[in-house]
C-alpha cells in the first residue's frame, strides 16, 4: 500500500552475527556505559539543604501585599473568593477604625482572610481578579504538615512582613 506520508521507515532486522549472539561484547559495552555514569556528578538536589530556583512564572504560596507605606492593600471585596474555582478562599470584612489608617489602605479591610491550601489549585485566578493588586502567588511551594487544620493559612502566614523590618 502506498503510504500517505513519506515518514514511514522500513526497519530491517538483520540476523545477529556471532559476536552479537555471544552477548558478551554487548554486556561489556553496557557495563562500560554504567561505569561512565558511576563517576558522573549526581543530578540530585537534596531539598531542605539545597533549593532549586523557581521559574519566573512559578505560582506558589499566596502573599497579601502591602503598599509603599506599609499598609495592607486588601479591601476585602471578595472578588478573589468569587473567582476561586476551588473555593479555597474565605474572608470576613471589617471597617477601618480611627487610628488604623497606617495599617489599612482602604476603609474596609479583611479582618480574617483564610486560604485552604489543600483546596487551592494554584491557578492564579485570584491574582487576576484582584482589583487592588493585593494578592500574588509569588511564594515558595506550600510545605507539608501533619494535620489538615494546619493547612488553612490565615493572615499571620499570608500577609507580607512590614516594610521597616
Amino acid at each position, binding site marked *: 500500500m502506498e503510504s500517505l506520508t513519506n515518514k514511514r521507515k522500513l526497519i530491517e532486522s538483520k540476523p545477529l552475527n556471532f559476536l552479537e549472539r555471544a552477548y558478551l561484547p554487548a*554486556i561489556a559495552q*553496557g*557495563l562500560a*556505559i*554504567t*561505569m561512565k*555514569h*558511576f563517576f*558522573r*556528578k*549526581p*543530578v*540530585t538536589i*537534596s531539598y531542605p539543604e539545597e533549593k532549586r530556583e523557581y521559574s519566573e512564572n512559578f505560582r506558589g504560596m499566596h502573599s497579601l501585599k502591602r503598599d509603599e507605606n506599609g499598609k495592607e492593600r486588601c479591601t476585602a471585596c471578595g472578588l478573589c473568593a468569587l473567582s476561586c474555582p476551588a473555593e479555597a478562599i474565605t474572608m470576613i470584612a471589617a471597617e477601618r477604625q480611627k487610628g488604623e489608617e497606617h495599617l489599612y489602605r482602604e476603609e474596609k479591610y479583611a479582618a480574617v482572610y483564610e486560604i485552604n491550601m489543600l483546596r487551592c489549585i494554584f491557578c492564579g485566578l485570584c491574582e487576576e481578579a484582584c482589583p487592588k493588586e493585593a494578592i500574588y502567588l509569588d511564594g515558595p511551594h506550600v510545605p507539608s504538615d501533619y494535620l489538615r487544620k494546619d493547612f488553612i493559612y490565615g493572615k499571620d502566614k499570608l500577609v507580607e512582613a512590614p516594610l521597616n523590618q
Partner: protein
Amino acid sequence: MGVADIVIKFVLIVIIFAISLVIAMYSTYAERKIAAFFQDRVGPNRAGPWGILQPLADGGKMFLKEEIIPTNASPFLFIAGPSLAILTACIGSAVIPWGQQITIGKYVIPLQVTDINVGILYIFGVVSLGVYGVMIGGWASNNKYSLLGAIRAASQNISYEISMGLSIIALLMVTGTLSLKEIAEQQHGWHWNVLYQPVGFLLFIICAFAETNRTPFDLPECETELVGGYHTEYSSMKLGFYLFAEYINMFISSAVMATLYWGGYNYPGMDWVLAHTGPAIGPLIGTAVMFAKVFLFIFFFMWVRWTIPRFRYDQLMDLGWKILIPLAIANIIVTGLWITFIK
C-alpha cells in the same frame, strides 16, 4: 586437640560469622548506594553521615513490621523456609581459607574454620541445599505466585548447578585437589587459576549469578510477572532473612570465586612482604587482599545488576542447557588435551 585449639576455632567461627553478617548488612547499603551512583543519584544519606546507619534503620524496621502468616499456609514450613535459607547461606563460609596461618608465639592459627579434603564439593552441596529454603517457603505460602517463584528457583538452580559443576571439574583437573586450602596455596604469587581457566571462570561466574538469584537471573522474584516471587507472602524479619540470605550468598560466592580463580589471599610479591612483616602481621595483609578481591566481586555483582535486564525464562533455559553446558564440556576436553600434551 587441646583447649586452646578449641577456643581458637570457636573465636574464628564467631569472627567469620560476624564478618559475614556485617558484610551482608552493609551490602544492602552498598547496593543502594551503588545503584544510586550508577543512576546519577545520591542514594541513602539521611541516617548518619553519608547514611551509614541505613542498614540498622532497615533492620529495625524489619523487626518492627507486623508478622503475617497467611491463613492457609503451613505455619511450620512457612517459618522453616527463611530459616533454612539463611542457615545454608551461613554455613558455606566454613571451608573458605581467609588467609595463611598466623603464628603468635607458640600458637599457630589457621585462618580457615576447617580444611576438609572435599572442600569444593562441600560448598557445592551447601549451594544445592540453598534452593530448599526458597522452595519450602514458596510452597508453604499457599500462593500461586510464590509457588511459581519456587518452581522457577528450583529448575533454574538445578540447571545451572550442572554447568557450575562441569566448570569446576575443569578447574580440578588443573589443581588436582578438592581442598580449598591447597587450591589457594597452589596459586602462590600470581599463578592465579583464572590465567589457566579463563573460560571456566566465565562459566563459573555466570552460574554464580544464577545460583544466587541475582540479576540478570532473578526470575524467581521477578516483580513484573510474579509480584514478589517466592517471598510474596513474607513480611517482617522472615522477609528480611530471605533478603539477607541473598546477600550472604553473594558474599560467599564472591569468596569462593576469589579463592578458586583469583588466587585467594595470594598477591604478587607476597614473599617479600611476608619476610618483612613477620608471621603475625604478614598473613593478615593476605587476608586484607582476599577481602579486597571479595569486595571487588560484590561490586561486580551489583554493577551487573544495575546494567543488564532480566532474562526471559526460555532464554534462561536456553543459555543454561544449550550454551553453558556444551561450553563447559568443551572446556573440560580442551583442559584435558592441554594437560596431556603441553603441561
